[in-house]
C-alpha cells in the first residue's frame, strides 16, 4: 500500500509525468479521507499537529497581517483621496482583506512556514524508517502521520486567515485613523454598512478552507512520496512551496470568478 506510493516509476514525457503526479495525489487524498475515521482515534495527535501547524504560525501571520493592513491603508487612502472618497477607506480595506488578501497571503505564508515543515518532517520519517516502524507496530502511518497533519492544516488555515484579516484591519485603522486622520466613526460605520457577513466574511473563510486543503494535501503528499534521501527531501520541500503557491493563486481566481 505504501510501497507503490513511495516509488514512482519514471514515465514518458513531462506532461504525462505531471498528470500521473496529479493522479497519485488524488489517490493519496482519497486514502487520507478514508483514514479519517481511524485517525479520529488519534485526537491527541491531531491536536498536537494543530499546535505545530497553526499556533506556531501565529506570529508570522500576525506580523504580516499588521504590515499588510498598514500598507493597504496608505495606498488606498492615496487612491481614494483622488476621488474624495476617503470615507470608504474602512470598507475598501476590509473587503480587500476578507475577500482576497487574508486567505491568499495567509495560504502563501502557511505553505512556506507550515507546509515545508510538514514535507520535511514526513520525508525524514520515511528516510529514517519511522514510517516502517509504525507499520510494524500495527499503526497505519496514513492514519497516524498523514491524515492528522492534513486535518490540522485544514482546520488551522481559516482560523489563521481570520487572525490575519483582523490584524490587517487593526493596522489599517492605525494608519488610516490615527495617522492619516480619517474620522473614526466614518471608518467603522462605512465599513459596517457595506461588509456583508455571508458574501464577504463567510465566503472568504470558505476560500481559506479550500486553500488549507490544497496546501496541506500538497505538503503531506510531497513528504510522503519524497525519495528517502537528503536530496529527495530537499527537492520535495521546494516543490511544496512552488506547487502550493501556484495552485493557491490559480484556485483563487477560479473561486473568485465562480463563487463570489
Amino acid at each position, binding site marked *: 500500500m505504501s510501497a507503490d506510493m513511495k516509488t514512482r516509476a519514471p514515465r514518458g514525457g513531462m506532461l504525462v509525468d505531471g498528470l500521473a503526479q496529479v493522479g497519485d495525489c488524488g489517490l493519496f487524498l482519497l486514502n487520507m479521507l478514508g483514514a479519517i475515521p481511524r485517525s479520529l482515534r488519534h485526537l491527541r495527535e491531531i491536536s498536537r499537529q494543530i499546535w505545530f501547524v497553526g499556533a506556531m504560525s501565529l506570529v508570522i501571520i500576525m506580523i504580516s497581517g499588521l504590515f499588510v493592513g498598514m500598507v493597504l491603508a496608505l495606498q488606498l487612502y492615496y487612491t481614494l483621496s483622488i476621488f474624495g472618497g476617503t470615507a470608504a477607506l474602512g470598507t475598501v480595506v476590509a473587503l480587500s482583506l476578507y475577500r482576497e488578501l487574508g486567505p491568499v497571503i495567509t495560504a502563501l505564508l502557511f505553505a512556506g512556514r507550515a507546509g515545508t515543515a510538514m514535507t520535511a518532517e514526513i520525508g525524514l520519517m520515511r528516510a*529514517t*524508517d*519511522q514510517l*516502517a*516502524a*509504525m507499520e*510494524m*507496530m*500495527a*499503526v497505519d502511518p496514513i492514519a497516524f502521520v498523514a491524515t492528522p497533519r492534513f486535518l490540522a492544516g485544514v482546520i488551522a488555515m481559516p482560523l489563521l486567515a481570520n487572525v490575519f484579516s483582523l490584524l490587517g484591519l487593526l493596522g489599517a485603522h492605525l494608519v488610516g485613523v490615527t495617522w492619516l486622520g480619517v474620522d473614526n466613526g466614518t471608518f467603522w460605520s462605512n465599513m459596517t454598512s457595506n461588509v456583508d457577513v455571508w458574501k464577504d466574511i463567510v465566503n472568504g473563510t470558505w476560500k481559506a478552507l479550500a486553500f488549507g486543503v490544497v496546501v496541506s494535501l500538497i505538503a503531506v503528499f510531497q513528504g510522503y512520496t519524497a525519495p528517502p534521501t537528503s536530496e529527495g527531501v530537499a527537492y520535495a520541500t521546494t516543490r511544496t512551496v512552488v506547487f502550493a503557491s501556484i495552485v493557491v493563486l490559480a484556485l483563487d481566481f477560479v473561486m473568485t470568478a465562480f463563487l463570489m
Partner: protein
Amino acid sequence: MPIEAVADALVEVRDLTTLLSGKAVFDGLSLDIPRGKVTAVMGPSGTGKTTLLKHITGQMRPDRGTLRVDGQNVPTLGREALYALRERIGYLFQNSALLTDYDVFENVAFPLRQHARLPEVLLRNIVLTKLQAVGLRGAARLMPSELSGGMARRVALARAIVFDPMLILYDEPFVGLDPIALNQVLKLIRTLNRTLGITSILVAHEFAAVRQVADLVHLIANGRCVASGTPEQLARGESDWTRQFFGGEADGPVPFQYPAGDYATALGFTGAAA
C-alpha cells in the same frame, strides 16, 4: 541442503522467491523457525536477512512461495489481519527507527498507547520496567537525538518487547553495543525466551554472541538456506559454506563480491596486460 521439517514451527517458509530490481534475492528459500526457541539467521551482508524479516512481517511480498506465521499465510493477508498479526510481533529495526517527535519514554509507550487502553500508572510501570531491563530507565525523558547509537538501539529493543509479543525479530541487535550492554542484551534475549517463551529470530553477524543464545542457526547465502543446525554443529564447519563463512575467507562458495563484471576490465586493463 535438506530441511528436516520441525514439528512445531511458528514460522514456516517454503520456496520463497523474490526479485528486487531484477535480482533474485531469494531463490526458493525454505526454512522453519521453531516455536519457543531462539533462532539465529546468519549470512553474508546483502543476502537478504533484513528482507526476510520484512517478508515475515508482511512489509514486503514475495513473488512466489508461502510464508506461514502461526498458521497464517502472510503474503495473502488483508490489512486488518496483517495489522492484527503485527500486534503480536516485536521488531527491532536495524537502524533503531525511533520516533524523533517523542522522548524515550513515549517511544517505548507508543505501542501500548496505540493498542491498549491502560491506566496511566500501569502504563508507566510497564514502560519503566522495560527501560530498566535495557538499563535506560534514567534516560526516559531524553529525546532520540540526545542518544548515542547504542542507547537508541536499546530503546528500540525496549519498544519491541513492550507488548510481550509471541515473536520478536531482532535485526542486528548487537551492533554498536559496548561489552557490558551487549551482555545485558544477550541476557535479556535469553530471559525473554526462557521465562516468557517468546520465540525469537535473531539476525546477527557476531557468532560469539549468537552462540550464547541461539538454539538453532540458519545460514543463508545466494537466496537459499545453505546450512542449519545448532551453533556447535555449524562451528565444526562440516560444509564448505560454514567453513568459509565462519572462517571469514573471501573465496569459497559464498561470493564476497557483489555480482560484477571482470575486475581487470573495469579498471581499464586489457586482458593481456593484467
